[in-house]
């Protein structure tokens, strides 16, 4: 079973394990992205994830379909959280199941790379000192 979803709820790895379970699949690869306690050497308390929800969900579905078309995988889970997440929280999950391990690793890696490159989601760092910065904001550097 496939899941491609934007969510405000905590990411549940067990839900993904159940979704991709398949007696024909000898390999499962998972990637979890988590909120770190620093960014480029500066202490962080958490991240706010902004999203264009409608288009982001369409793009997640599109990426899931691409992965199944391009790699020999049978199931894919792509879940991204939105909202305010404290340090240590999982923000994104990619899970795939396939017959053997090479395609599982390749598809999981492609999945997270395409999510980060294409899905309309934006990170605002909540610095430990109380200020905020949007990632990739050119004016944040001044």
């Amino acid at each position, binding site marked *: 079973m496939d899941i491609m979803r934007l969510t405000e709820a905590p990411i549940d790895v067990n839900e993904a394990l159940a979704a991709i379970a398949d007696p024909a699949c000898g390999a499962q690869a998972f990637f979890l992205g988590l909120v770190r306690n620093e960014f480029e050497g500066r202490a962080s308390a958490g991240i706010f994830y902004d*999203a264009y929800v409608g288009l982001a969900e369409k793009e997640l579905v599109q990426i899931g379909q691409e992965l199944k078309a391009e790699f020999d995988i049978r199931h894919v889970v792509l879940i991204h959280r939105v909202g305010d997440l404290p340090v240590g929280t999982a923000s994104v999950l990619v899970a795939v199941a396939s017959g053997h391990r090479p395609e599982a690793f390749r598809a999981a890696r492609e999945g997270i790379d395409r999510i980060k490159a294409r899905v309309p989601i934006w990170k*605002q760092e909540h610095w430990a000192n109380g200020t905020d910065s*949007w990632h990739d904001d050119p004016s944040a550097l001044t």
Partner: protein
Amino acid sequence: MDQNISVTTLFFSFAADRMNAREVSVPLPKGSTLGQLIAEHLLPRLGSESQDWLFSVNQEWASKDRILHDGDEVAVIPPVSGG
């Protein structure tokens, strides 16, 4: 005023900060393109780098020659940073 249309324009991330809004309704002459909306209404406040950003119309990626219609939902997509 039947020669005018109105499009809803959505802003996210630091683009929303620069516009001081997440959503703005913009009146346009009928037949206007996405490129015209950007050049005349958005660039002055979003800055010149926004010319290189992506845009969507009705939740689909759109090019700047796209003709806009009354009620369209345009979204301004600055460089994404999910994950």
